[in-house]
């Protein structure tokens, strides 16, 4: 195996994973992209994380934004640049270059910049340096020849100083940067991109080059929000996490029975599909409730209803979800699917999962995501979600609405999941009842029967349908038979219930 070069962790969520440990230590890295692609923020987060997490003070030399503007811009991300400066963890230097104030006459060099940077580095013992965006020198100075020679010298000098540096560059026509900075920085080049697809903004990152190191070559989506940058790996590199044979209760004893009496496998993924109004959210909420009741943590991603709506509605079937929220065991996150692209949804979910470390995750419903992306894209997103949570040993429950438009989504997704539950509407004798069955459940013995699924103020329950010469009876027809049987003191011999009707405790 090739020995990898020493690296400096960026501390940026996800970036250290795809670079296999960070940026090349003691060397410059080029980060380039168009305006607003997030390069300044990424560079600044590298400095801030260095100072706060790794005890590596940093110098941020801004050729673009004024130092105070920069502080104000990132205050919303919780980066307190003032405090870092007071504690000598950070030095901001704003290099003001305005062509109209400068007259060039004769030979010069950029020793002034070197001395200034050197002084800033030495004054706080900096290990990290950012030059953002050094290309602005080209706008202020007309002597290209001198500039190019000096830039070459500058990057050499940075290496000699042993600082890990980020140089940012503006995207150029047909080139990575407008002034060809990539020519000087040969160790690591990262390109950022911000595009709008279907009116939804997506940010992506790609490592174009990383000398002496393996790295992911895909385009990785990333997210900028109140916690800075999160880059998410598209596909997990390894498939070697241990799987659990532990079981977790579904929260509905009669449903547990259908799953060999014990419920789901811990860390497995469960798909729950059905037509509108069949109680998918109720089953999911029951599972959430059960997880929290056993002191586990659960995240409920709701793409359809607000947390308040879900809590209110579930109270009507006897679930007090708000107590779990108050105890900090249950988190609701509601978003409109159209708020972000799929990648961003996934990034957001990863981040929340990473932070909260839940035992169970619920996504209700996945079908709403089809409004944001093509079916294929939704599938690939879900595959990554399933993969990721499985690796973390988190049980995942997905619900899917079966309707004309999204008919096939559950079938598509079903190959990704370990268990698939179907809830059906059954219309007989002028009444509508629900029937539930298990389509599949990998690696365990499970019931193959169709059960009647009952939602009442006491909760959820599954009861056996009546099978007899009259056919399969469900709903009030089944109840009538049940009463008849009770009145007779025994089953009447003609039809039968498969198992004693289970009652809720």
């Amino acid at each position: 195996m090739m020995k990898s070069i020493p690296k400096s962790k960026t501390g940026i969520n996800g970036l250290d994973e795809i670079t296999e440990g960070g940026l090349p230590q003691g060397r410059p890295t080029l980060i380039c992209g168009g305006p607003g692609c997030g390069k300044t923020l990424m560079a600044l987060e590298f400095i801030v994380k260095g100072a706060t997490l790794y005890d590596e003070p940093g110098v941020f030399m801004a050729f673009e934004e004024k130092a105070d503007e920069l502080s104000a811009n990132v205050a919303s991300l919780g980066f307190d640049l003032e405090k870092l400066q007071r504690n000598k963890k950070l030095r901001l230097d704003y290099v003001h270059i305005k062509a109209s104030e400068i007259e060039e006459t004769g030979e010069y060099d950029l020793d002034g910049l070197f001395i200034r940077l050197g002084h800033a580095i030495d004054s706080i013992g900096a290990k990290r340096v950012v030059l953002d965006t050094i290309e602005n020198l080209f706008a202020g100075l007309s002597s290209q020849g001198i500039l190019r020679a000096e830039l070459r010298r500058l990057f050499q000098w940075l290496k000699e100083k042993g600082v890990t540096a980020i140089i940012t560059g503006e995207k150029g026509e047909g080139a990575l940067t407008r002034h060809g900075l990539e020519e000087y920085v040969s160790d690591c080049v990262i390109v950022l991109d911000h595009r709008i697809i279907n009116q939804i903004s997506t940010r992506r990152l790609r490592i174009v080059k990383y000398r002496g190191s393996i790295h992911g070559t895909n385009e990785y989506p990333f997210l900028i929000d109140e916690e800075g940058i999160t880059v998410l790996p598209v596909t997990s590199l390894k498939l070697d996490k241990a799987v659990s044979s532990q079981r977790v209760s579904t929260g509905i004893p009669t449903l547990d029975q259908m799953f060999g009496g014990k419920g789901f496998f811990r860390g497995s993924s469960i798909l729950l599909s059905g037509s509108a109004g069949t109680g998918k959210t109720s089953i999911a909420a029951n599972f959430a409730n059960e997880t929290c009741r056993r002191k586990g943590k659960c995240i409920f991603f709701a793409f359809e209803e607000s947390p308040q709506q879900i809590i209110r509605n579930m109270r009507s079937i006897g679930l007090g979800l708000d107590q779990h929220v108050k105890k900090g065991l249950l988190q609701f996150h509601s978003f409109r699917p159209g708020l972000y692209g799929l990648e961003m949804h996934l990034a957001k979910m990863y981040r929340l999962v990473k932070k909260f470390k839940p035992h169970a995750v619920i996504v209700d419903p996945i079908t709403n995501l089809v409004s944001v992306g093509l079916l294929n894209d939704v599938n690939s997103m879900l595959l990554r979600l399933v993969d990721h949570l499985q690796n973390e040993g988190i049980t995942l429950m997905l619900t899917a609405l079966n309707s004309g438009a999204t008919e096939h989504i559950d079938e598509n997704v079903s190959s990704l999941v370990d268990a698939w539950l179907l809830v059906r509407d059954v219309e007989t004798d002028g009444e509508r009842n629900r029937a539930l069955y298990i389509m599949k459940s990998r690696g365990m013995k499970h019931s193959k029967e169709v059960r009647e699924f009952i939602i009442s103020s006491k909760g959820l329950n599954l009861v056996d349908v009546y099978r007899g010469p009259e056919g399969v009876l469900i709903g009030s027809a089944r109840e009538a038979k049940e009463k008849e049987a009770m009145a007779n003191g025994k089953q009447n011999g003609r039809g039968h219930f498969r198992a004693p009707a289970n009652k809720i405790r």
Partner: protein
Amino acid sequence: MAKLEKTWELRLYVAGKTPKSVAALKNLRKYCETHLKGMYRIEVIDLLEKPQLAEGDQIFAIPTLVRKVPEPIRKIIGDLSNEEKVLVGLNIRPVKV
């Protein structure tokens, strides 16, 4: 003869005694003696000795001549070999010889 009220406060930033710095100072002295006799003051700052001063005057190139007074502040970078440009930059009307 009444003394002109105008004075030029000039600051020359150098980094050690490099040929460029030496040339810049020599050129500057020559222009001042010719065009600003008795009306100028030159301060030479060596950033190798006082690196902390580079930030205040926004110095990045060496040598840099900064005209502090009269305002507005102007910066002339280079070894000052082009007399015409330096005079324009310093806002000096050349003395007809």
